């Protein structure tokens, strides 16, 4: 079982660090079109903030913030968002995963830009929720198998 860390410095540092890392994760997600990064890295960073919370503030704080049912729904939702973006291209009378045919009020080139953004958001949500879910199950030694 993971206890709350004894050191005030560690606990305070994590409290300050977590929102900053979450902000950075959103930046990485949004800026993936222009620089290094994207949905996968953003998702892992988001998951890392929850894992950091568990390591520093203890299991209770982690379980207050994380609901496994919601996590499972988010993990599926991320993959489904990806699939839905692909299928939406088919609605525009094109092939699967052709974002230029997305029903958006923009030019086909911009539609591909937004299509990439949508699937990156899906990947981020899916990866973050999956990692948090795995960590929650692994770290929950209160209830051994």
């Amino acid at each position, binding site marked *: 079982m993971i206890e709350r860390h004894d050191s005030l410095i560690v606990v305070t540092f994590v409290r300050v660090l977590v929102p900053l890392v979450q902000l950075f994760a959103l930046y990485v997600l949004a800026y993936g079109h222009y620089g*290094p990064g*994207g949905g996968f890295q953003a998702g892992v960073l988001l998951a890392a903030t929850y894992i950091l919370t568990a*390591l520093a503030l203890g299991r209770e704080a982690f379980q207050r913030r994380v609901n496994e049912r919601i996590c499972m729904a988010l*993990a*599926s939702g991320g993959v489904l968002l990806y699939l839905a973006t692909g299928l939406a291209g088919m609605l525009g009378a094109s092939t699967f995963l052709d974002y230029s045919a997305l029903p958006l009020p923009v030019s086909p080139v911009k539609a591909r*830009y937004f299509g990439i953004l949508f*699937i990156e958001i899906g990947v981020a949500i899916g990866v973050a929720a*999956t990692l948090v879910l795995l960590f929650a199950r692994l770290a*929950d030694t209160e*209830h051994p198998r």
Partner: protein
Amino acid sequence: MVFAVIAVRAADLLAAVFVLGAYSFTMSLVWAGIGAVDVAFTEVVVGAGASTVLFLAALLRTSRRRSAPPSGLRWVALGVVVAVGVALVAVTRPIAPWGDPGSPPSRHVSPRYITQTVAETATPNAVTSVLADYRGYDTLIETVVIFSSGVGGWLLLRRRQP
């Protein structure tokens, strides 16, 4: 290489986990050195960060000490590892030199991705446009793989209903 030997030899699994993290971080520096910044970023957050923590969490559930492997299997294992290693080194010979613009991979679809990514997808980072648009199927299936591995782990470790 040094890290790999230390990680395998370490009797303390906690130390082995940290050495693996250091190995991942070194690899990310290698990726950054050859200009693959996206890969370096992924290697840092996943290899050095997330997987280290997941290994640690797994250690919480098991023992920190490892048990000695059965002695008869050790020579078989060594033979398999050496054979695979020799095979891997042997197949690197036909691979084109790194950064060679005349090699077949650089002449096939790469020029189109590099020159057309802004015109076709309004995305200056070609890595992102290749990953998410030109090679969308691959990324979709990768995401499904991560999701299904997560579901598998969750099902194996889930709380037993009383």
